[in-house]
């Protein structure tokens, strides 16, 4: 059995044991996400027709994803025409190397970063720190997670699992500040630290929410203004962006920006929406001297090659599927052990990091479909979990399970044998108490936390036969 379970799966089961036992944390996370969901429902209701908006958004992303080559090259042409530089990174190594070489060549010492999940994906911070660069995350949630030495818990709300007092204690320990329970004071502590870093940094690194092909720009949406400072102040800027972020036209953002804000946080629009088309132009007062965009593939083209699941590249990383997912709410973000948590993470991680090692994420779902129902760009998320399960079993069937389903099929193909088997169900119920709760109990995974109903003394079939006999008797 051991060869059919991966270290990632074992870790997942262990972490799920721990996190599902932590009732107070589960309740806090559930309540926080419920608030976002309520806000999202209210804002969504202000759309004239949310369903039509969803389908329009899906159409835009479908067009972009199915013409990636064309739109990315259009972006590159227009962005470089204004003096920007574009680097195509096939994998995380190439992306890291490019950024590190650039930083070395320009004698960079300090780097300020705004929120970028692509950075998490390629473990950029660790690589930069290992090369001796100072790196500070400027998004408040990411700043807290960096201080804590922990990966983001949720790809939109990185530290949503932490209580105020835990953040206060962390600041006290790491920054030497006085303890406080006031969110405003906690924010001001982070702000004081961060303001200095914008000025000290020689390089800024960001992600991007969209790449706009027809204007050759990137779009960054945020609520704290930290991304503006990250891009605007240091002399060199690098945006690390997944290739699936491209949209054909600037006008597409008229729909996608409000859609992203609504689905993600329940806002009509996020606080700051910026467009960047390259380095500072002659006559402009601010902006970086150098502007690099690293276009990251890192196995996205593997997903692109799968017509069945290609729509997973429509994802705008709003996080809505995490917010409604009963699995996420009960196990929390860290249990996934991935850069992208929740339902969409369970779909794409096996493509990015290996199906056999990460197929358990697709298995760890009741397939309830709340994710698909909420997805603003219409990704068939929960059915893709089924597709991953099918692909994993077809590629490498697990011997025990394979045998089980063969036996199951043997039985279910033989109705007479099946009927005979169901007649023994009451016998099973009779014998079950003898082993219940022991290691011999075949139902232990169920019965350790839940009762199992006893089989009825008389099955439906025999009751129905009696019923039919009575009816025909009565009509005579």
């Amino acid at each position: 059995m051991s060869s059919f379970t991966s270290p990632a799966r074992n870790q997942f089961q262990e972490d799920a044991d721990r996190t599902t036992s932590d009732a107070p944390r589960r309740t806090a996370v559930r309540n926080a996400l419920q608030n976002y969901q309520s806000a999202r429902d209210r804002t969504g209701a202000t759309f004239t027709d949310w369903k039509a908006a969803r389908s329009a958004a899906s159409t835009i992303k479908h067009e972009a994803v199915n013409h990636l080559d064309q739109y990315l090259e259009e972006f590159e042409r227009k962005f470089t025409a204004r003096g920007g530089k574009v680097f195509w990174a096939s994998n995380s190594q190439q992306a890291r190397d490019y950024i590190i070489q650039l930083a070395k060549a320009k004698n960079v010492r300090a780097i300020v970063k705004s929120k970028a999940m692509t950075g998490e994906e390629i473990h950029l911070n660790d690589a930069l720190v290992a090369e001796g660069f100072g790196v500070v995350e400027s998004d408040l949630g990411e700043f807290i997670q960096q201080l804590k030495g922990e990966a983001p818990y949720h790809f939109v709300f990185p530290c949503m699992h932490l209580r105020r007092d835990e953040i206060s204690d962390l600041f006290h320990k790491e920054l030497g500040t006085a303890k406080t329970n006031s969110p405003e004071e906690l924010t001001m502590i982070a702000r004081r630290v961060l303001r200095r870093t914008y000025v000290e940094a020689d390089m800024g690194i960001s992600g991007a929410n969209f790449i706009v092909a027809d204007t050759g720009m990137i779009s960054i949406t945020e609520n704290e203004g930290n991304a503006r400072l990250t891009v605007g102040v240091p002399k060199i800027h690098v945006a690390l962006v997944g290739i699936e972020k491209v949209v054909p036209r600037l006008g597409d953002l008229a729909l996608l920006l409000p859609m992203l804000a609504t689905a993600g946080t329940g806002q009509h629009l996020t606080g700051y929406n910026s467009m960047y088309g390259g380095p500072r132009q002659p006559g402009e007062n601010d902006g970086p001297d150098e502007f690099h965009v690293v276009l990251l593939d890192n196995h996205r083209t593997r997903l692109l090659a799968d017509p069945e699941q290609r729509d997973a590249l429509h994802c705008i990383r709003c996080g809505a599927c995490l917010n409604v997912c009963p699995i996420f709410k009960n196990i929390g973000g860290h249990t996934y052990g991935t850069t992208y948590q929740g339902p969409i993470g369970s779909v794409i991680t096996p493509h990015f990091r290996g199906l056999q090692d990460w197929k358990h994420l697709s298995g760890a779902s009741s397939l309830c479909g709340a994710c698909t129902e909420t997805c603003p760009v219409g990704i068939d998320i929960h059915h893709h979990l089924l597709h991953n399960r099918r692909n994993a079993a077809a590629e490498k069937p697990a011997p025990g399970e394979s045998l089980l389903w063969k036996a199951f099929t043997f039985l279910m193909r033989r109705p007479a044998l099946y009927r005979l088997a169901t007649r023994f169900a009451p016998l099973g119920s009779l014998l079950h108490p003898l082993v219940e709760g022991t290691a011999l109990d075949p139902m232990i995974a169920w019965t350790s936390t839940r009762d199992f109903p006893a089989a009825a003394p008389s099955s439906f079939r025999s009751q129905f036969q009696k019923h039919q006999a009575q009816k025909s008797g009565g009509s005579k």
Partner: protein
Amino acid sequence: MFQESLLLPKPPMRVSLFIPCFIDSLYPNVGMSMVRILERLGHSVDVPEGQTCCGQPPFNSGYWDEARSVATNQLKAFKDADVIVSGSGSCGAMMKVFYPELFHGHEQEAEAKNLAAKTWEFSEFLVNKLGVKDVGARFEGRATFHDGCHGLRELGTKLPPRELLSHVKGLELVEMTEAETCCGFGGTFAVKYPQISTAMAEVKCNSICETKADYVISNDSSCLMQIGGWLNRNVGTVKCLHLAEVLVQQ
């Protein structure tokens, strides 16, 4: 969903029931209640002998060849059925929504689509096909309704069970906050990831208890096995009932 005229009398139909394994062995009363309700409405009911399982367990586990093999038996068993009615939204969804995908590009694709088109979940059959919202039931008690995910999201059956229950005399229906939240059953998921499944049951059941209902009603017995399993172990007072078991009461 296509709705026929509510004014014209319905000709009697021959209804073929699909009785999943758990209803057959664990909850026979659910099946018998469906039989009685349909017969009272003037329809004839049969239970094709050759039926076994819809094939969902291997399908959800990724073993689609095995699932197809089981489903082929089901296609054969229900070949001559006019309409197929299932007391489980989940098994109903398997036949109605997933068979066409499972058989896509296979020899029996047309047959699978044909079966899908004539398959109904019990409550949507009554309301959307037969146009019946009041079956003349009487049931005293305070109850809350659990939406099974497959019925709710694959079949879109949000309203039919509520329309039926709203006509039950004596019944007080109170919506719970987590009505649309998964109970955590999910077939083999419940035993492969028992800790997550149980945590989900706990959230569901706490929401049920908050309503102070005496009964939790659903149109899916597999969800009720999970909910009832947790409630019996931890609460003990709330009773689980399938929709048909309520509608049959007079």
